[in-house]
């Protein structure tokens, strides 16, 4: 409990630091949304008018306070370019990217972990080495290439067995859940296969490192077969590491899926960011960058909490003896 409170406080502090960083960085970088909006031939007076309408003529501390206050209320302002609220803009794009990442991770885990176990435990050395090769080759395939291949195989209208849509997201979005989900299948498999190969390699490596451990030997001495001991004890003791790997994979996917989104023509967060940065849409970009980075911090938080849940050695009682561990 004490750990949880400390970890949450630390998380809040990190968020605050992050917001400062994003705010400062965007004030230092060149580019002025007001002059972009006003157009190349605008008079300075017109630019100044736009600046003042957007609050950009106020002092930095004031701008920061306004922004932060808005964030806390879920109000991130209105995009200077599109005229939509930033929150709804992020929401509609995230509604594609986040489900895509979650699906991709599910694909990656449900392929990577069982195959990784097989690669470590299969009875025949031949099978083990074939699986290992698959993991290495699979992880080396560029997502773009794998995605193209999948489109050529399964893409509706273009593929050999054209059964799945490969371009775009339904206009109705998640109001048409079936169509929305189906349009994410090929992209999720593309990202998931590549990431799954990585998870497979980690799972295999974790299990192999447990093979000669005394803990697995003891489980066997209690009456488990080697396979049981590896799956019930070896895998369990690797769980914390695998959670870290899954967390990292998740984080990598946030940027990784952007390529895949553009290949499959999905209007996700990647398309939104590229668009807004290109337009120097300061108001939108600062909230978008902040939320994206905050999401990474949140992942870190979740991974840490899961570590604690998984390993009694990190529990409360050690903490009293061991003192501060989150200094």
């Amino acid at each position, binding site marked *: 409990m004490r750990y949880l409170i400390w970890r949450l406080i630390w998380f809040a502090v990190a968020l605050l630091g992050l917001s400062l960083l994003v705010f400062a960085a965007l004030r230092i970088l060149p580019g002025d949304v007001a002059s972009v909006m006003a157009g190349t031939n605008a008079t300075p007076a017109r630019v100044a008018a736009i600046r003042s309408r957007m609050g950009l003529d106020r002092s930095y501390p004031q701008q920061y306070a306004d922004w932060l206050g808005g964030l806390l209320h879920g109000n991130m302002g209105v995009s200077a370019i599109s005229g939509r609220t930033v929150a709804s803009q992020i929401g509609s794009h995230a509604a594609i990217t986040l489900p895509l990442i979650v699906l991709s991770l599910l694909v990656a885990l449900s392929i990577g972990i069982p195959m990784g176990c097989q690669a470590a435990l299969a009875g025949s050395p031949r099978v083990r080495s074939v699986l290992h090769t698959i993991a290495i080759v699979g992880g080396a395939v560029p997502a773009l290439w794998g995605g193209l291949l999948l489109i050529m195989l399964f893409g509706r209208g273009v593929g050999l067995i054209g059964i799945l849509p490969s371009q775009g997201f339904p206009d109705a979005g998640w109001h048409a859940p079936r169509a929305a989900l189906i349009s994410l299948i090929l992209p999720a498999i593309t990202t998931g296969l590549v990431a799954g190969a990585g998870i497979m390699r980690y799972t295999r490596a974790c299990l192999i490192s447990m093979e000669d451990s005394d803990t697995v030997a*003891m489980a066997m*001495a209690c009456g488990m077969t*080697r396979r049981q001991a590896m799956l019930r004890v070896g895998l369990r*003791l690797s769980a914390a590491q695998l959670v870290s790997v899954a967390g990292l994979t998740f984080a990598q996917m946030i940027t990784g899926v952007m390529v895949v989104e553009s290949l499959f023509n999905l209007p996700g967060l990647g398309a939104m960011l590229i668009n807004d940065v290109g337009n120097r849409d300061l108001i939108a970009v600062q909230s978008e960058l902040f939320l994206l980075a905050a999401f990474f911090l949140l992942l870190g938080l979740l991974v840490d909490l899961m570590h604690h849940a998984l*390993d009694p*050695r990190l529990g409360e009682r050690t903490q009293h003896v061991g003192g501060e561990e989150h200094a």
Partner: protein
Amino acid sequence: MNRTDMKDAMAQDVDVATRPQLATSGEILRVRDLSVQIADKTVLDDVTLDIGASERVGLIGASGSGKSMLVKAITGLLPRAARVGGDITMGGTRLQAGDDAAFAALRGRYVGLVFQNPGAALNPVLSVEQQVCLPLRLHYDLDAGERRDRVMTMLERVGLPASLAGSYPHELSGGQQQRVGIATALITSPRLIIADEPTTALDAIVQRSIIDLLVSLVESAGASMLFITHDFAVLSRATTRCMVIDRGRIIETGDTAALLHDPRQPQTRLLVNAAKTLTLNVNPEHHHA
């Protein structure tokens, strides 16, 4: 086996354990011409040995002579890459090398193992109670209450307070950890206990009490024991027969007292003399030939 059969088997095991005088017939372990190669290196070479009911046998040998490998070969814990030849018969079952299921059926039920380093062997995510309970869970179909009773009784017998039942290994001292290891090995009243240098990871002061505990529990259960140790005082006190292993071969075997007194083989003599010097002069456990 159905549920009642298992319960019967369990009851028998425990009954036999509490009536040591009945457990004196028959052969517990029989090993013939056991050879093990790992990566073309011969680690065991034509090992033949027998352990009878209620017999306690010592095994000594220099570091790297193959003591641990012998234990692993007997219990089916060798690395996968090992090539094994010869015969092992345990509890009336003739074991094929590689038949993991057959070995697993005996491990934790017919043969219990005590590890050298409990800190590394105990599962860090299991509480003391869960750990000690594991062999019961794997081999017998008992209800939770009965399991808990047996575990608590066992904890008491190894000298652990009931209050530690919910603790995790990292919260225990080395000596307490090895008591958990012993409790786990003995919880199913196995006929054979194998202990591979069970105290080398412990402080000198704790070593003696742990060894005494282990030997007295094995003795009162009427179980047989294969005991690997460098402590010759313990060896002569706890075992009646002793084998000497050198470079994977059993080179000498005989009455423990006689063997320690009057070793026949030059290798044994070296070993015994080194151990005696160390036992008399320095800390008894801190030698590795």
